[in-house]
């Protein structure tokens, strides 16, 4: 399992709608902020890259020291972004695909406002379980 893994879901207006630290290593105090910063820096790269391919999984789009940013862009341009030190590309792709399906179910709820924070604790539990399984 990845030591460091920070996962965020960014809505169309570039505002995060979900965040989770899913790595196994002990957390640095400022880890969350650092991770947010790195992921946000990657957004511009993602934006351009997304238009060059019809694939949703964009693999690694940016680097920071030994950390890599991998991204998955959905049809509605919601970005699933993972900051990680793992090299398990297949695992990462599977993780993204399964989270994507969960996201669609959240979206199908008419009482969920697209672009708003995902507050479902079930979603959080399942995402963390998927991270343990695939990353």
């Amino acid at each position, binding site marked *: 399992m990845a030591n460091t893994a920070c996962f965020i879901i960014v809505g169309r207006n570039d505002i995060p709608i979900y965040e989770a630290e899913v790595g196994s290593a002990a957390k640095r105090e400022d880890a969350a902020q650092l991770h947010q910063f790195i992921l946000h820096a990657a957004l511009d790269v993602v934006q351009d890259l997304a238009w060059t391919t019809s*694939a949703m999984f964009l693999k690694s789009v940016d680097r920071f020291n030994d950390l890599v940013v991998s991204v998955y862009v959905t049809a509605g341009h919601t970005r699933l972004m993972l900051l990680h030190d793992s090299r398990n590309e297949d695992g990462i792709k599977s993780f993204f695909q399964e989270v994507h399906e969960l996201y669609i179910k959240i979206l*199908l709820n008419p009482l969920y406002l697209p672009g708003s924070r995902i507050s479902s604790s079930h979603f959080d539990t399942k995402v963390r379980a998927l991270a343990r399984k695939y990353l």
Partner: protein
Amino acid sequence: MIGVGKMKQYSNVLDKPLSKGKQEVSLSAFAFLFSELVQYNQTQVDNIAELERRLEDAGYAVGSRVLELLCNREKGNRRETRLLGILSFVHSTVWKVLFGKVADSLEKGTEHEDEYMISEKELLVNRFISIPKDMGTFNCGAFVAGIVKGVLDNAGFPAVVTAHFVPIEGQQRPRTTILIKFADEVLKREARLSQ
């Protein structure tokens, strides 16, 4: 109960699998529901433009969800990046799933570079509602225009989408045209990607 299927219980809604899209309801059930949507919104507005906008908003909510659902289920998670691709997705996939058939036609506007039209001889939502004369140009197709807008906007192809009645020679009922006018940024990007 013997012979009766029991509803499968899921501990949480996220455990339930995504539908395969095969379930159906009667057309009349949809017609009754849609009619209530229109009538309710009529009580909330002062004019036709506002009524159309509210129907469009309701459609938009449907479109934004349909985009994600259908790309995942019908298009093998393929994300459209080109104009004709997304239009084709709307005209064929979205129409087929929601209305049971692909749209009658998809045409490029002759006068403006940024305009496209999807036309339907008898748009589903206009089949069972007759517009009273005092409502002028009001078109329930505004709901469908909203669905299209929801799909296009969220896919990264912002556009102004409106529904219009177009009288056809020799036909008693006009056909409905969904007019799509893409934002500048879409055309600019298309040009860039075409190089």
